[in-house]
């Protein structure tokens, strides 16, 4: 696995973690009047940075946008987001874990 890939995976994990926090906040405030739900966006910026090398990837910050006023929190959609986020997070952790295993293999089987 290349350096760029692991940087991408780590940035994506950061973004998903931020998204889980914002989604939890949206759900907690589902009954708050005039509450504007938050959205986390990082995929587009990350995809663009991936073409420009590692430094660009490291500079990507997840963006938090707020929904326009007057839109209600849709509980089902928020729960779907929470569940998707957790699944994608688990998948990326798996990728990172495999990379670490390969590194460990390289360290232990080099004699």
């Amino acid at each position, binding site marked *: 696995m290349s350096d760029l890939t692991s940087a991408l995976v780590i940035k994506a994990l950061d973004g998903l973690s931020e998204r889980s926090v914002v989604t939890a906040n949206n759900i*907690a405030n589902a009954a708050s009047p005039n509450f504007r739900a938050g959205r986390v966006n990082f995929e587009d910026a990350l995809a663009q940075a991936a073409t420009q090398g590692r430094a660009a990837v490291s500079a990507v910050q997840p963006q938090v946008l707020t929904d326009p006023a007057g839109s209600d929190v849709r*509980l089902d959609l928020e729960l779907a987001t929470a569940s998707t986020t957790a699944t994608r997070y688990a998948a990326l952790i798996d990728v990172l874990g495999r990379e670490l295993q390969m590194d460990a293999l390289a360290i232990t089987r080099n004699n």
Partner: protein
Amino acid sequence: MQAMEISRTGLDVEWRRLEVIAQNLANANSTQGVDGKPYQAMRLVSGPKADFGNYLSASSGPLGVAVYGVEPEGLPARSIYEPGNPNADAKGFVSYPGIDHAAEMTMMVKTERVYEANIVAMNAARQMYLKALELGKRS
């Protein structure tokens, strides 16, 4: 662990909302409280939790939800003619608290749903934290 903390505030607020609804329904026939007036239906007021120390810098992330107070709903009392009731006035009318049962039940169902949603969100966050602990584990 911020996501789980936020879901926890959601559980706390919805639980307290449910307590207020239960109190309203339990007192639907309370014609006289300690102050001599009929019971007033209450409504829990909640909103996004704000950290006033960091409010202007906006550096803090989302903090969840908080209770801002329990306010009387202000529904007018119902007057019912019951001359035999010890709480009746000179003309034989008893003031029953104005409680909108349909609204209370609707609010109760809504509160339950939001409570459940907070538990699901908390479980999703928990799964993520547990998964992160598996990093570097030998399989």
